[in-house]
């Protein structure tokens, strides 16, 4: 017997309330797990209640930030429902679907492995694929396998839905070939390109297996490529960024080309990777009908989300949290830190829980070497702090300048102790280390709990606030 939707959603919501009251968590995934268990078809039926349908963003890197940017752009046009706390598995999306009252468009960031299942339930009207990098091999298996599953997702899209792809990623460009209703985005600024880095993934053509010729690479394997085997090559994007100026750890500005107009954008988030996130958001929003003014306004107003180049004040000092989770993402973080002037002290926190990847070998594929020039002290933290210390030791960083401080709270204190009176401490945590740090910062009153901030983000992104109860 199928549990009626009204009952299963009621039970799932109650579980969320209990979860929050018990202080165990923000209730961002558990209700969805309960809902999925009670009624596997509930998500699909709940999604159909969204009058304007759903839009989905998936990528290895940048999906939370792109989704936040998209939400900021679309806030004036739609009443959005979504998962801004980054709970991006099927359970997180199901949880978000429990809270769609008053919303007309669903905007979801979705984990790359969870995409097939979620896309089937949501039947998105727009799907934005940002990038596909080698991430956590112990969890996802190999990149090829993931690309193959995404191929299935694209094949299963309704003919009238729009596919938005990063044309600079050859695997994604391949997925979109031959399909009607595609919007391609990319970077057109050779000054920011370089040779293919060590950690580059898609070196071989997914159609014929021959190694791509790369004219230049912007981020990881994202760049200007062509295949000498079958002739497949990058096409001119519909939406692109050019004349990009990166302003250290602060932000960037660039010219954004939309199909019919060009605008200047000043981004408050650092690094070339955030230009890609902005392009993904701009292209997706364009597909959903946003105009140039909304796109520029939304991009410029977007602030950092949950440890993705987020600044937190601690007294006179500043904390800058830069999430790292895979070689390409970490390489870009390193590049951004170096561009801003390498700090004397750096905290890197490496955990190895399932969400971080239990296999920590990826840190050896990160090019940390550019940091060694200016760095005076590394505080290696997290459950695999010693492993991280070894990575720097074998890179030639003097062992006497490495401190192993496994507990993130203590590493934070030690880092702050070494930071100048009004200076900034840079911390690069992996995902669960970031959550630990966020917990410590919340306990000490420096920042709110992540789900409180998620709730706020949801309100700011246009979902109507519940009417405040009138005082008696």
């Amino acid at each position, binding site marked *: 017997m199928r549990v009626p939707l009204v009952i299963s959603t009621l039970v799932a919501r109650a579980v969320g309330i209990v979860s929050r009251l018990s202080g165990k968590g923000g209730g961002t995934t558990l209700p969805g797990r309960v809902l999925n268990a009670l009624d596997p078809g509930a998500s699909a039926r709940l999604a159909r209640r969204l009058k304007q349908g759903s839009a989905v963003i998936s990528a290895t890197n940048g999906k939370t930030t792109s989704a936040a940017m998209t939400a900021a752009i679309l806030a004036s046009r739609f009443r959005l429902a979504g998962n801004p706390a980054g709970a991006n598995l099927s359970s997180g999306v199901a949880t978000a679907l429990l809270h769609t009252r008053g919303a007309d468009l669903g905007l979801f960031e979705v984990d790359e492995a969870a995409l097939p299942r979620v896309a089937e339930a949501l039947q998105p009207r727009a799907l934005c694929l940002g990038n596909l990098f*080698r991430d956590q*091999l*112990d969890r996802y*298996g*190999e*990149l*090829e396998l993931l690309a193959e599953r995404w191929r299935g997702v694209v094949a299963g899209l309704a003919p009238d839905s729009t596919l938005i792809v990063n044309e600079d990623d050859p695997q994604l460009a391949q997925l979109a070939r031959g399909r009607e209703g595609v919007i391609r985005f990319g970077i057109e600024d050779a000054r920011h390109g370089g040779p293919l880095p*060590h950690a580059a993934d898609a*070196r*071989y053509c997914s159609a014929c*297996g021959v*190694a791509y010729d790369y004219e230049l690479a912007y981020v990881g394997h994202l760049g200007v490529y062509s295949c000498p085997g079958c002739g497949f090559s990058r096409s001119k994007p519909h939406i692109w960024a050019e004349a990009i100026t990166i302003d250290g750890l602060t932000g960037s500005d660039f010219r954004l080309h939309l199909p019919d107009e060009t605008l200047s954008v000043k981004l408050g988030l650092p690094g070339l990777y955030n230009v890609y996130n902005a392009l993904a958001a701009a292209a997706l929003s364009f597909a959903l009908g946003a105009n140039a003014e909304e796109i520029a306004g939304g991009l410029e107003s977007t602030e950092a989300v949950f440890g993705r180049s987020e600044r937190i004040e601690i007294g006179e000092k500043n904390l800058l949290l830069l999430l790292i989770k895979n070689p390409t993402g970490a390489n870009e973080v390193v590049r951004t830190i170096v561009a801003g002037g390498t700090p004397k002290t750096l905290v890197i926190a490496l955990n*190895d829980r399932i969400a971080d990847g*239990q*296999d*920590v*070998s*990826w*840190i*050896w*594929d990160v090019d940390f070497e550019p940091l060694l020039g200016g760095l005076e002290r590394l505080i290696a933290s997290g*459950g*695999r702090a*010693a*492993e991280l*210390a*070894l*990575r720097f*030791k*074998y*890179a030639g960083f003097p*062992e006497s300048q*490495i401190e*192993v401080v496994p507990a993130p709270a203590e590493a934070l204190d030690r880092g702050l102790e070494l930071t100048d009176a009004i200076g900034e401490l840079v911390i690069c945590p992996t995902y669960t280390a970031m959550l630990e740090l966020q917990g410590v910062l919340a306990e000490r009153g420096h920042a709110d709990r992540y789900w409180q901030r998620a709730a706020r983000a949801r309100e700011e992104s246009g979902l109507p606030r519940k009417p405040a109860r009138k005082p008696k």
Partner: protein
Amino acid sequence: MTTRIRLCHLYPDQLNIYADRGNIAVLRSRAERRGYELELIGVGVGEALAPECDLIYLGGGQDREQALIAPDLAARADEISAALEQGAALLAVCGGYQLLGRGYRDRTGVEMPGAGVLPLETVAGEGRMIGDVSIECELDPGEMLTVVGFENHGGRTLLDPGAVPLGRVVHGFGNDGESGFEGCRLGKAIGTYLHGPLLPRNPWLADWLLGQALARSLGEPPELETLDDELEYQAHAVALGRARERGGKFR
């Protein structure tokens, strides 16, 4: 004159998935700190192994990359065996380990030929063996060593009767999840599923390989100066703890 270790890294462009450059950085640093020079030579498809090679290294790759180099590697059987006979040592990890056997048979029965240098073959199994591993091995008679790493393989590797494993599994799956064997040892050649990378947290294994490599030109493994391995021991202890807690479980 400094003694030089000539390290041939096979297919560095294709087989580099599990942080193989970490293994090479460790070999280089530990050689140089003892006053030996390490000459690294990348050997790609169609290129010959350098003469007077002391150490051969093969890493792991994704399926596509492995398929790209498999025919070239299969044609190298004599070249690699000759280098081993002339005293070279060898380390092969993961995909490189599988392809040094006779071949890899996938689930549809299609066989990817290997070099046949190591006495083993690999067949695809159901479910990947993913997790932390610890093994005990006896590289020199009477000296038991613990080696820790991470494994992630769909293939089940079966040693020929009489073939010698690298070690016995304490925690984790190992070659096939059943035999209790991990890796394969043939004289100075070692094949293993353990990455992570393997050598930073198992410095004694790195030193054993360096000793064997140096023995080619020096006649026998020299006494290697002791290094400060405090961080290496810490990393080893943590990885060993992980293998105990969570090694060898299907997810």
